[in-house]
Structure formats: C-alpha cells, structure tokens
C-alpha cells in the first residue's frame, strides 16, 4: 500500500522530466556527434545518403582547431567575470546596509531589491535601450555590461545580505576596542567572513551571464557576440545543429565545472569553519 502511494506520487513528475528533460539533453549530446543535414537539421544516422552520415567527431575537431570559437568562449568568460565583479562592488554597500538595518526596515529594503525582478527581463533590457540611445552608448560592449549587471544585480545582493546578516557584531566591537579603524575592521573581519556569500552570489550571476544571448543581441554591437549568440545562431539562423549542439555541450561542461568548483569550495570552507 505505502509502496503504491510512493510510486503514485513520485512517478508522474519523474516520468515527465525523464521524457522532456533527460531525453532531450541526451539527444543534444548525440546530435553533437552527427553531420549537419543538407537543408539544415541533422543528416541521417544510417549510411544511406552518401558519406556524410553516421557519427563523427568533426564538430569537436572544428572547435579545437578554429580559434574563433575558442576566442568567443574566452570573451564570454571575461564578460561574465567583469559582470560578477561589478555586481559584487555594487551589491556590497546595499547588502551591508540591509543587514545592519532594524528588522522591520530590513524586510522593506529586501523587497525593494526584489521588486524590479517583477518586470519582464526584456523590459529591463529595453529600459537601457531608451536610456543609452540618446547618449550614443547603445550597441557597444559598455551597453552589454550595463545590461548584464542590471539584470543580475539582485542575485548578488540577496546571498550577500543573507551572509552579512549572520555576522556577530561583537567581533567588530572587539576589533574596535583593540584599536582597529573602520578600514581595517572591514578588510580583516567583515570581508573575509562574507566570502561565502560573495561566492554563492557569484555563481548565481556568472552562470546565467555565460549563457545569455538576448542582451548582447539587443544592446551590443556586431562584435559583442557571446557563447549564447553562437548557439542561437547555429540553431535558428545557420541551421547547423551538430555545431550548435557541440557548443551547447561545451557550455554545459563549463557550467558543470563551475558548479563542481563552487561545491568543492563550499565544502572546504565549511571544513575550515
């Protein structure tokens, strides 16, 4: 009986996600080893229509031999890193202010950070089209970074605030009693203690930025192509699906590596504490 209940409850969502999440993901892996079809899509798996059928490592060979793709990957990491850094700098005073406020005011200040999220992502990007347009700053790398920071900033504020809120004020008082000035107290106590918060915020910012295609497309110039644009291009414009699938796999690998790294760092942090 309880066994039956267990299956009844867990089977439908599991089946749905196996079919519409796991299977499609595996198909992307498979597609990256295939040839592009003559009219877009994928070529036949069976060797019926000439030589370009079956499985191949061609797209991967292409990735590692053509520096263009590698360069765009590097640039995407650069943009993600810069966005994350700016988010840290901008989020810090805000998160600190919120953490130091009274309980009642704190909820309001947090709400004020979340509220802009209530507007559609495209609206938030569009706002910058209106603002930057008259200043001739649109369609530039600068506009891309501004858009990226704007869309992802709350992801940094919230984990940072959650971390800062837990700090024991007695530590700072003790430091003050021992003669440390504000600057020293910040760099020797608050900042090191807030590293886990910065870290989780960075993961939340870095990963979505890495896969973003809409912001470069709407705010960037022709040279501001990132991984996301490359992938989108292969699937919707060039219709070279194997190449697109390979790029998606590369992005997945990058994301998994980052996630693994952060899990590992989180664990070693926990051990130190």
């Amino acid at each position, binding site marked *: 009986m309880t066994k039956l*209940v267990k299956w009844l*409850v*867990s089977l*439908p*969502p*599991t089946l*749905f*996600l*196996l079919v*519409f*999440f796991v*299977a*499609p*993901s595996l*198909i*992307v892996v498979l*597609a990256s080893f295939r040839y592009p079809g003559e009219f877009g*899509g994928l070529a036949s798996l069976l060797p019926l229509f000439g030589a370009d059928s079956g499985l191949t490592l061609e797209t991967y060979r292409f990735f590692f031999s053509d520096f263009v793709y590698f360069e765009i990957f590097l640039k995407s990491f650069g943009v993600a890193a810069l966005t994350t850094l700016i988010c840290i700098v*901008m*989020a810090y005073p*805000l998160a600190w*202010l919120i953490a*130091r406020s009274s309980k009642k005011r704190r*909820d309001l200040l*947090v709400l*004020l*950070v*979340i509220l*802009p999220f*209530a*507007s*559609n*992502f495209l*609206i938030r990007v*569009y706002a*910058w*089209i*209106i*603002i930057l*347009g008259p200043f001739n700053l649109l369609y530039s790398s600068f506009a891309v970074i501004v858009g990226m920071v*704007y869309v992802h*900033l709350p992801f940094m504020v*919230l984990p940072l*605030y*959650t971390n800062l809120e837990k700090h024991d004020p007695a530590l700072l008082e003790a430091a003050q009693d021992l003669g440390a000035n504000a600057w020293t107290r910040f760099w020797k106590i608050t900042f090191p203690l807030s590293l886990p918060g910065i870290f989780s915020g960075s993961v939340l910012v870095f990963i*979505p930025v*890495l*896969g*973003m*295609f*809409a912001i470069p*497309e*709407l705010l960037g110039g022709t040279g501001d192509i990132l991984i*996301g644009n490359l*992938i*989108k291009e292969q699937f919707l414009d060039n219709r070279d699906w194997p190449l*697109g699938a390979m790029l*998606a796999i590369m*992005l997945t690998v990058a*994301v998994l590596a980052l996630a693994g790294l952060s899990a590992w760092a989180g664990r070693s942090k926990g051990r130190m504490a």
Partner: protein
Amino acid sequence: MKPQSLWLWAASLGVYAFLYVPLAVVVLFSFNDSALNAEWVGFTTTWYGKLLHNPEMLGAAFNSLLIAVIASSTATLLGTMAGLAMHRYRLRFMPFLVLTPVAMPEILLGVSLLLFFRQVLDLSLGLFSIVVAHITFSIGFVAIIIRARLAGMDESIFEAARDLGATPWETFKRVTFPLILPGVVAGFLMSFTLSIDDFVITFFVAGVGVSTLPLQIYSMIKVAVTPEVNAVSTLLMLLTLSMIALASRFAPDVLKGKG
C-alpha cells in the same frame, strides 16, 4: 549619524536609483505624447489605446495567458507531487532531476527541447511545445516551495492521523493538503509568472506561427523603439506585481528571499 553610515546610505541610494530609474523611465514614457522616447511632451493614454487595437499584440497576450494557465496548473500538480516525494522518501535521483532544469542556463533547455521536438518527435513547434517547455522549468520551482513548506512541519501530525486510523488518502486530504495549500497556491502563482515572463526558452520552442507577449516585445524592440512597447511593458509589470503580491499573501514565509 556616523560618517560611515552616511557613506553607506549614499552608496545604497545610488544602487537603488540604478535599479529603479530605468523602469520609471519606461513607465513615464508610456504616457508621453510623442512617438520618440526622448523628451517629455505631454500626458496621453494614446499608446494604451493603440495596444487594444493591435491584433498581433492581443493575439500574443491571449496565447501567453492560455499557455500560462495550462502550463502552471500542470506544473503545480507535478511539482507538488515532486515536492511531497522528495520530502517523504529518500529518493536519490529525484532532487537532481527536479532541480537541474532550474539551475542551468535557460538556453540549454531551450536548445535541447527544440532538438527533441523537431528531430525525435518530428512535431511542428507551437503551443504544445511551449506548454511542455514551461512545465519542465516550472516543476522545480513548485517542488522547492512545497518542500520548504513541508520541511517546517511537525511530523507527529501525520503520525497522529495514521494512529487515529486514517488511510493514506484521508491523511492527505484532511491533513497534508490543507497544510501545504498555501504553498500550492504560491507555487501556482510563481509558475504562472515564470510562464508569462519567459522569453529565452519560448524563443527556441515557439516556431514561426505562434507568438507570446515576450516574443512580441522582443520582435518590436529589435526593430524600433516605440511608446507602445512602453505601454505593454507597464501593463505586464502591473500583472506580475499583482501576482507577486498575491503569492506573498498566501505564502509569506516562502517568498521572503529564504528560498
């Protein structure tokens, strides 16, 4: 006030301004009596009137609502099951299955579903593929909310129900469900908002025939900047704001940034 906190307030106010001024500009220019989003000319509601006579926009709005209703009801059902299952049973695979679609870049889910629908199922893209995609990414959010709700609960209530002779179904109907109901409502509103708002995944699985509000907005802002976009943006903001307000009424504990 100490000089430090003055400095802190000034910096924070700057960041808040950075967050709000752009949105205020969008809303403000939706009432501007000029086709250019450049300078304030005078107050008008023309752009809202124009929206109501724009068949493409209305069609897109209808699609968005239809998709959101179907997708979020299904996702709420499946997500609630997943949340219950993850809380009750030690399933090793389930959390991975439910949470990965939430954590990975949206473009990856969009691309994989595009491939799956076109290549494997050989379906033409449209409403069905969009609904399925929205369910896929919403299940995880609902499950997280339900699990958070259950985590704070006293297990002895369920034991008491069993001891008093309730069947599993009765326990669910009379004890578990009323307790998780606020979470279910919050999950529904959350997935509704996610569905109405989704651009990236929809962009990949929509095909050519069907448009949603975000897709419509995207194609408009790619071409030109018009106050009509400001008007539809303002309306969309109002809609999601009221959704969030509703959700926070039903499950204040879930939505206070603790998730």
